[in-house]
């Protein structure tokens, strides 16, 4: 797989949110406005890039048995760094993202990529994979936020849109709208997506809890996601 393909797969074919259905919590919570979505996407991408590079560099050092706790500590360290940077340079974003910024630690995309990709591949490939996945995450967040903000609040990036501002459907920016728009987007991907990823592409091993869960929870989600072909 060459570099370009490696980058592009995260955008569409294996989009972490719309195809792999990882990281649903931040997707639903921070897609109320475009600015928030882009901020969240950027923060998660930075963490993903750093963690993928370091985990890939240390893949021969970290013993297999304790790898998950090691990954979590590394990721938590990077999340804390990003948290401090956002607090210092973008205090407004920090306020609007609130609890979801520290919760990047438990974002499945980051642990998932560490498990699926970074611990098997070279540093450069892992970095490209992280950029692709991060861009895919940001793209999905941006799409959701664009729909929710345009029709829910009648604005785009805070700029008022002439007709929609008087006829906005405010429920779309509230909690039910998040679920609804996300459902519609996944349905659209199912309908128009040409490539149906095979189950082995992102089977249970992509889930950080795969070793222990015995398909109690995460397995079912992914099975459903693939049952649609």
């Amino acid at each position, binding site marked *: 797989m060459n570099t370009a393909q490696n980058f592009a797969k995260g955008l569409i074919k294996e989009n972490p949110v719309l195809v792999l*259905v990882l990281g*649903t*919590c*931040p997707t*639903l*919570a921070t897609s109320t406005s475009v600015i928030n979505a882009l901020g969240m996407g950027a923060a998660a991408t930075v963490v993903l890039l750093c963690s993928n590079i370091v985990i890939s560099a240390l893949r021969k050092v970290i013993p297999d048995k304790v790898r998950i*706790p090691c990954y*979590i*500590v590394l990721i*938590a*360290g990077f*999340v*804390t760094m990003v*948290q*401090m940077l956002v607090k210092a340079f973008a205090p407004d974003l920090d306020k609007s993202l*609130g*609890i979801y910024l*520290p*919760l990047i*630690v*438990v*974002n*499945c995309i980051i*642990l998932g990529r560490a498990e699926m990709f970074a611990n098997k591949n070279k540093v450069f490939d892992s970095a490209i994979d992280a950029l692709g996945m991060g861009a895919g995450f940001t793209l999905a967040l941006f799409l959701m936020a664009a729909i929710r903000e345009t029709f829910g609040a009648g604005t785009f990036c805070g700029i008022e849109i002439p007709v929609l501002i008087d006829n906005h459907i405010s*429920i779309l920016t*509230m*909690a*039910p*709208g*998040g*679920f*609804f728009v*996300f*459902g*519609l987007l*996944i*349905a*659209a991907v*199912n*309908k128009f997506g040409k490539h149906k990823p095979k189950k082995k592409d992102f089977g249970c091993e992509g889930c*950080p*809890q795969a070793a*222990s*869960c*015995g398909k*109690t*929870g*995460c*397995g*079912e*989600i992914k099975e*459903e*996601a693939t*049952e*649609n072909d």
Partner: protein
Amino acid sequence: MTKLIIILLSAVFINNYVLSRFLGICPFLGVSKKLDSATGMSIAVIFVMLMATAVTYPIQIFLLNPNDLGYLQTIVFILVIAALVQLVEIILKRYIPSLHKSLGVYLPLITTNCAVLGVTILNIDEGYSFLEAMVNSLGSGLGFFLAMVIFSGVRSTIEGRDIPKSFQGLPITLVAAAITSLSFLGFGGIIENLFA
């Protein structure tokens, strides 16, 4: 006392962790297919939330705050929760095997559940006292339980219906979750007025 009741009720109904704060969506979508697994998962979540708050709250107040180590919150909390869940699992396995059998499979799933880390951080952010923090954790756990049980009922009626092909599976589940979440919007404002 009134404040505790308000905290409890608003954690269950208004700021419901799943349906209005979007925390713990993965187990909500994954384990809600059957009522018994939904119940088992929720009881395990309530249990871990209470334990995690009981452990992380004193750590923040007596260890991190006096030493100006507040910035280590995220790292410390996730490690404490992960270790705690492991410990609980080992103890249950050794002393209460029957309980381990029914809750055991759900415990490892909870370690990286954002609802648990979320509730411990929110308790600190909101500046609750220890008692208030515990009540908030209990309320959040109960809210998760309520959402899971209601949603497993909703899903059982979806099962086997004639659904357009592209909506089968996850999309229709999310749309159903939207409608369930809509019903919780109706609680907004009720609890403040109840005690006004």
